[in-house]
């Protein structure tokens, strides 16, 4: 869909976990696996939204039916689901965890931002979604009074944080292992560098 690939793998014995959690996917030919949040959990499968922008994601997008890869997960902590008036906010490939989240929350309203009509084809994955296309920003579609659950690029998350303190933000960081071993995915939390894979990837925006 658009520039993105929806990669579907057999679930086997793996638990899909909760929305916002992620899996480490072996990227064939690469030394390190790649972290991907779960996009959908169809019966017997796990589905991931891949934006083929680098060597690892391109290797994942090039996989063909019948290939097999090593999958580790679910990892990290996902979105808190006990919210009264959920609004899902996504930007670009950051909409990845929202289809699964929408399913678990009973298709609440969503606002999604993309850089082009082509990219916006992925909006079809999220029910009840309103779409903003550059130069319109997704934050212009956020109305007050909602419990925001967001995933997207850092500038978008910064804007969401400013608009809606208390929002749940799914962050991203380069990661070698995904299970707390490498200390590579450091993000600043409460003035300290902490491991996003252990403390997150979903973090509550400081009020």
């Amino acid at each position, binding site marked *: 869909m658009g520039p993105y690939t929806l990669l579907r793998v057999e679930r086997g014995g793996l638990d899909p976990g909760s929305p916002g959690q992620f899996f*480490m996917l*072996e990227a064939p030919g*690469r*030394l*390190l*696996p790649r972290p991907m949040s779960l996009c959908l959990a169809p019966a017997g499968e796990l589905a991931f939204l891949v934006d083929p922008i680098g*060597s*690892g994601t391109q290797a994942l997008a090039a996989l063909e039916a019948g290939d097999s890869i*090593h999958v*580790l997960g679910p990892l990290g902590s996902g979105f808190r689901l006990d919210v009264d008036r959920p609004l899902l906010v996504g930007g670009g490939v950051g909409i990845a965890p929202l289809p699964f989240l929408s399913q678990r929350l009973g298709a609440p309203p969503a606002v999604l931002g993309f850089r082009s009509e082509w990219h916006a084809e992925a909006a079809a994955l999220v029910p009840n979604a309103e779409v903003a296309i550059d130069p319109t920003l997704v934050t212009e579609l956020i109305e007050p009074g909602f419990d925001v659950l967001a995933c997207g690029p850092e500038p978008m998350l910064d804007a969401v944080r400013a608009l809606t303190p208390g929002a749940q933000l799914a962050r991203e*960081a*380069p*990661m*070698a*292992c995904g*299970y*707390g*071993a*490498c*200390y*590579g*995915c*450091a*993000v600043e939390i409460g003035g*300290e*560098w902490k491991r996003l894979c*252990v403390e997150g990837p979903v973090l509550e925006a400081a009020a």
Partner: protein
Amino acid sequence: MLLNASGCLDALTAPATARAFDAFVTKTVTPLPRAGNPPVRIAETAVGMLNSIGLANPGRERFLAETLPALRGLGVPLWVSVGGFKAHEYAETCALLEDVTIELNLSCPNVEEAPETAAEIVAACRAATSLPLYAKLSPASWDIAEVAGAVEAAGADGLSLVNTLRGMKLDAGLHPVLGTVTGGLSGPALKPVALAAVHACFRATALPIVGMGGVASGRDALELHAAGARAVAVGTALFSDPSAPNRIREELSAELATLGLESAEQACGIAHQEALPERKHLDARSRVS
């Protein structure tokens, strides 16, 4: 004996992986807490990875009060990696430790070099503790065997070989990827470097050696044993495979069995033995006379 390489595993977040090793080696502990380096801290390269974690750790006091007691609960023998910036700092940490093996991190490429030489630091620590002291050396010195000889003379009980090598990666726009510009190179790229270092130090000293650098398979472990390592440590391979220790152990057993060896110790130093004379295969068709 199979260990993890220091800084490549958090036993408290992945206890099952830690228990699969014969001993757990901690992240380096420094006298004061260190937040570590700003991101980006990780970069994949063609045949390895770069890290610039920067010795993030809670500092000596909290390590002794909180981390170490929690690690004891795992029931795995512990190696504590000790770091510092001056010889007396290393020695002070050593003096506070009990019932562990100590690995002196003399060579982290992500922090400024200690002003004292490796041998001076080892001597200060030797005076401070009777615990086993392993010196972890950088492969970047021009003659690692000479450094190994010096730390042996200073009282080290063993060598950990090798730490990462300093490296750098540029992004598409030709700027450094890592927040600190350079980082430590590990993974498959480091294996030949580790083999050469272990081989050289095995000849130069009588110290037991823990070999590490790019170990991802039983064959890799076997090669380090053959070069002279008594034990082997797994680092970067853990990031892509938390079940690496058991897999490598099984693969190594199979490798040893094909050689008719019963243990990894028997493979130690094989690369130094004179090669067996080549067998002459007579493959002629002989006429019956």
